[in-house]
């Protein structure tokens, strides 16, 4: 999946400017980032530093104002919204801070959602859902609805949904931000396992140094620039 140089994600000279009325807010400025395949990268930084924006650019949820974003050898910043949607369905697994599960669907049906975009038949889909739910340790909660699950369980369903299509890249936006320490640790443990035993490339945005400690590398984002160390 990676390019010849072993990079899965290659972000080159990316600017991101948001407009608020007449005001222009420069969130990212000439940012470069290389993520090798199989890495578990934590992105840290103060609120508003552009961590989630960078994650969205890598995940094809947003486009840079300038610069290039290559993922698995494909330049994605020039893709149309329609093509980007198909690309996301194939290559990206997303984990959200507030889980973003559909309340009207059971845990299993929530996990099945991304598979509805594939050509798998219902039997194949069920098999994959079973596997994903087993990996996150919730095979006994398949028929439960989100409202009957704890926060930690909901987030694990969210992770099962993110990995069910076996995506190239797992992007997690504050995955423990809404959880207590114990549930958070379980989720981090799970992400770490996915990275180490299954070789999943993971990019995780977090405020929490304890969470970042689970990653194989941590980068700090501030004033639109990345650094190896926190900027004082």
């Amino acid at each position, binding site marked *: 999946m990676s390019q010849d140089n072993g990079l899965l994600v290659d972000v080159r000279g990316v600017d991101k400017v948001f407009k608020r009325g007449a005001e222009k807010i420069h969130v990212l400025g000439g940012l470069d980032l290389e993520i090798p395949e199989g890495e578990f990268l934590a992105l840290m930084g103060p609120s508003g530093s552009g961590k989630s924006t960078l994650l969205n650019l890598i995940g094809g949820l*947003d486009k840079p104002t300038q610069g290039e974003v290559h993922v698995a050898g494909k330049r994605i910043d020039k893709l149309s919204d329609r093509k980007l949607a*198909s690309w*996301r369905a194939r290559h990206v697994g997303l984990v959200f801070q507030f889980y*973003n599960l559909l*309340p009207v669907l059971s845990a299993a049906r929530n996990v099945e959602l991304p598979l509805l*975009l594939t050509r798998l038949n219902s039997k194949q889909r069920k098999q994959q859902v079973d596997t994903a739910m087993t990996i996150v340790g919730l095979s006994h909660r398949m028929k439960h609805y989100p409202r009957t699950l704890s926060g930690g369980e909901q987030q694990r369903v969210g992770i099962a949904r993110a990995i069910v299509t076996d995506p190239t890249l797992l992007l997690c936006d504050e995955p423990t931000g809404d959880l207590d320490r114990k549930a958070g640790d379980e989720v981090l443990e799970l992400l770490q396992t996915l990275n180490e035993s299954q070789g999943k490339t993971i990019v995780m945005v977090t405020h929490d140094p304890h969470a970042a400690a689970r990653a194989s590398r941590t980068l700090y984002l501030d004033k639109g620039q990345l650094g190896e160390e926190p900027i004082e």
Partner: protein
Amino acid sequence: MINWLTQIVSVTKFSLQSLPERKGAALSAIFGIAGVVAVLVGVLSIAQGIRLMVQNSGEPENAIVLRSGSDSEMMSGFSGQQAEIVSEAPGIARWEQGAMASPELFVIINLPKRSTGTDANVPLRGVSLAAFEVRSNLEITQGRMFQWGLAELVVGAGASREFTGLELGSSIEVGGEQWPVVGIFEAGGGIAEGEIWADAAVVQPAYRRGNSYQSVYTKLTSTDAYSEFKDALTTDPRLNVKVAQATEFYSEQSTLLRSIIIGLGSIIAGLMGLGAIFGALNTMYTAVSARTREIATLRALGFKSGPVVISVLFESLLLALVGGLIGGGLAYVAFDGFRAATINFQSFSQIAFAFDVNATLLKNGILYAALIGLVGGLFPALRAARMPVAAALREG
């Protein structure tokens, strides 16, 4: 393509499954649209009822003769001698008493409406012997026929129902004297059911009309005889008349009234429809807004904008159709067969009729509801599709 259809079905299903959480807004849209459809169908059923009544009034082989230049019987008039010439024209069917031609008088009397108590113009028709032969669908259903030469009345069932004093056995003042109502007749729901009938020869002196009439109603041997009959009368130098087929005459007589009702009905339904569109817009904007994060999540997972647009439109259409069905049902229950009388501006007299909610009106009402739903759902649907995914994920 299959994938796209799967997406549409899935997203639409999720949206409908979440409807119970938005039931307040959904119900207000449904009942708003139901109200519009009920009013639209209700008003148009008046015009349809009048159309039906007119359709049932004229038999195709019947013809009506009026003075040339007159638009209605009220404005027409000719002498008894001219009426006799008309009765002798070729093409008129015959019965044992002679030609099937009934010279008639048409006067207006004032009677209070039962519904409001206010005076209304009720047509009193003086008829000749052949009148009941010319109108073959006329039937005395209560009491008896008036006696020729006596000041007696038979009353159409519609008139008896709508106006005070026209019950069997009661009497009303005609030309300064009390005339008893001796019978009630039906005429297949036709215009005659809104009239009072008496012997023309008795009505003439009561209204000081001498030996004059206003119209001659005739039954022809067949519809083919009409042109011969018409030509004979319009080219006769002794006469100055116009001839019309009964079906055509009645249809013309109600054109203005139907146009006014349809026009007013359309304006009312149009304005209400505009209101309902805003109601639907509001409901669907609320729905999209309440589901912002859900829609954004689906799109983040790879669901495309098209299925999201279609799912919002489908929900709006579904709510509108439910509203349309309820409104149509309400209109049917409340209005179908409801009897009323109104002024016909052309004859300047009251006509009694029944509202008619038929399948076409119901279909049109439901189509109108669907249109409201689609227009009301379109902009919220586009908004849902155009929401930037990254920004929408942070909302909600």
